[in-house]
């Protein structure tokens, strides 16, 4: 016996609350990294902004844009093996956003990221940490070092990192109040 398909939601019932219950999964894998000569981080960030903007509040789509842009930028500013591949996974639902990026890094590179993630997770005053870090790094015009802090302080994501077989995973999670 076949299962009857569901009836489509009438257009006039596709309001914001209904649309925000959409489940969106997005996966991208690109390699080798040295074939990328353009602003891939920007392109993917804008792409995600447009797709999520179709279903979720604009603020959620903007958060995803920032996170994707910062995490993918980190990949290309810290390439360990130019012949390797990076992966991006994004899941959006009414409960929030999960975005992760996986790429090859050395143990030394991972140790720096892990230290930064630990600092973010353990600091009692993240805003003060961001402010002092920006001022210190600006004085020396240092590149990088702000992206992960930004995701946590500005965009309210929880940040985790892991390292397995030479590949680093950075995961950013944002939880919204569950819609009824």
């Amino acid at each position: 016996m076949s299962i009857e398909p569901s009836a489509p939601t009438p257009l006039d019932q596709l309001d914001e609350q209904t649309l925000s219950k959409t489940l969106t999964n997005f996966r991208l894998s690109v390699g080798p990294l040295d074939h990328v000569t353009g602003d891939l981080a920007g392109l993917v960030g804008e792409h995600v902004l447009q797709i999520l903007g179709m279903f979720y509040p604009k603020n959620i789509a903007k958060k995803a844009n920032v996170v994707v842009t910062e995490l993918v930028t980190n990949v290309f500013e810290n390439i360990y093996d130019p012949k390797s591949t990076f992966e991006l996974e994004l899941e959006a639902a009414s409960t929030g956003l999960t975005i992760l990026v996986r790429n090859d890094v050395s143990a030394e590179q991972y140790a720096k990221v892990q230290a930064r993630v630990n600092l973010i997770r353990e600091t009692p005053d993240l805003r003060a940490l961001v402010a002092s870090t920006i001022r210190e790094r600006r004085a020396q015009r240092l590149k990088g070092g702000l992206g992960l802090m930004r995701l946590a302080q500005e965009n309210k994501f929880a940040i985790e990192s892991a390292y397995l077989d030479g590949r680093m995973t950075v995961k950013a999670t944002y939880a919204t109040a569950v819609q009824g």
Partner: protein
Amino acid sequence: MKILTFGEIMDGGATVFHSVATVDDRSLRHRFEGVIRVDNPYRSLKEHIDELNAKVPGLGIDEILIDFSELRFCNSNGFYVIMDIVEALYLNATEAKVTVRRLDDDDWQRETLPILLNVDDESIGRRTNFQNVRE
């Protein structure tokens, strides 16, 4: 109203970001428009920042509007140039009250922008008023 100085960032053959300062009598308006994503925005905006530092002193500016409402995106590589520009305005028009127009639902403009403006500094904070607008 006249244009005092402007800077732009080009990416892929197109202008992606404008930073424009205009003056009308003793009022200065600085408008940011577009996106900052490039690797080194300072390279594109250095002359603009230098011009602000050279031209704003002596204008007798008593009110400044810094308008971020058309700035759609700023990656962390863009933080320093934003700081350079707003610092040039604050430090070279020391008597001016500053209104900062920003987007109400933008995390960057709500959370990080006040840090870049350094409003925690009492001398900056008391001169600064935020005007929150919807997109």
